[in-house]
């Protein structure tokens, strides 16, 4: 269950990471907000993703 939650958080952070520049391209978001949003989503990605991907890699290599 925890793995599912962290996966959802991970992929959501990536989706938001690219959503901010898309909103900037559309002219509905300022650059400073984009930079801040991308930084926050970067932090979220690098906290959430190792929780499931690190172990998944090990399981994969063992199998």
């Amino acid at each position, binding site marked *: 269950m925890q793995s599912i939650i962290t996966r959802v958080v991970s992929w959501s952070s990536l989706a938001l990471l*690219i959503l901010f520049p898309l909103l900037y391209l559309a*002219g509905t978001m300022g650059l400073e907000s984009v930079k801040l949003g991308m930084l926050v*989503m970067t932090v979220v990605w690098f906290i959430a*993703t*190792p929780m499931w991907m690190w172990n998944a890699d090990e399981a994969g290599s063992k199998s």
Partner: protein
Amino acid sequence: MAKAVDTEVAAPEGAAGGEFEREPVPRRSWLGFKSFIGQYAGEHCAGTELMIGPLFVAAGVSAFDVIVGLIVGNLLAVLSWMLLCAPIATRTRLTLYYQLELICGRKLVTIYNLANGVMFCFLAGAMITVSATALGVWFNFPMPALNDLYPNSMGWVLAVLAVGVLISLVAASGYRVVAKFANIAAPWMVLVFLAFGLIGLRDFIVATGAQINSPADLWHLFSTQIWKGGEPLEGQVKFTFMHVMFFAWFCNMAMHIGMSDLSVFRFARKSWYGSASAAGMFVGHFMAWLAASILYAYQLHLDPANTDVLPGPMAYNAAGIAGLLCVIVAGWTTANPTIYRAGLAFQAIVPRWPRFTVTLLTGLLATLAGMFPAIAMKLLGFVALYGMLLMPMGAVIFVDFWLIRKFGLQSNYAAISRQSFNWAAGLTWLLTLGACWALVTYAGMQIFFVSLPGWFVAAALYLVLSGLYQRRNLAAAPMSVLKEG
């Protein structure tokens, strides 16, 4: 060019501690198509992409030349993996090293490893250069300009030294943890590269006041503001459609036509899995190059006098700290395996030295190279040289596998004759490089194009020289005797 030229990196053959080094990969270990998609997409999105894209703009490319040239060139690269490399890999299922050892003999393979290792060192140096430009944003020391060949400030030297020593120490300690981190970072990095392009595009729209209501409007912006064509910047070679196409095709020449990726595709179930390389080409060598080039074009748009190609400041201006982190991570995660693999290549030459020492010394050599901005600033030419240097051995493998028996000659001759140095292959390598050098020096052919005729020269030379060499040896000792050992 990615964890490799893109920066991309083939394992130096023979020393890597992989599986099935001296036997065909058994059926139970074959991998599915998806494994190769992930590997190529991740490996071809490297720190050096942030140099190559801007250097296209500095070379005065036009919109049509860069976009269509990249599409065609990358397609040719994918076809090269699919039709030249993967079919041999899935038939022999051997590493490049073992395949070369059977054909060329152990001593010649050692020389090949040395050449590969040296090129890896310079490539890793360029990656360290890219990462060090990020430190310049924080510490504000003078950084190299587009035409600088030597380090231009103490701050720059210290920044490269700090980054290089850190990367070297991690590589020497074993790069398994960094490889895992690289896997985690890869999807994030790809999206940050895409973000660079989107943000740069918006910046251009705002700065030029362009109205984008149709694809034609967008193309107009591309061709009149971003990739305008015209004269290259001072000290740069003018890039046309042919330059872009050949560069995109040959920047990974060592891997496809040069056959380094035999070691990768020996695990593939089918040879068409070579098409998985498209994921790397069209993410790293299309999207990432174009995105990085948009950032540089915008920098030139704002200040035409600011021709510095510095990924750190460009990324920071576009995406803030996330962009800066991307530059560091992209440089680090790709320099690390490159140094590790260069170290393994050198260790094949000095096997008694501890791997830690060899890798650390290799990393320090790469760090020294990274202090000289000439390699990064002349990356287009360096990458072309890298492919050219290893290309002849790819032609040797191709001819040895598909053609040589049709001419009544032996394939895998070094193994059959128990030679440690197949002079036919060694001379083919040397003479082909000589021919390429002559074409560049005396015929005025640019290095970006010379590898194509070079491949045919190598193929023909190997056939002719093998005929002479094998018949001479046969006269000295009949093949039945050679086979019996």
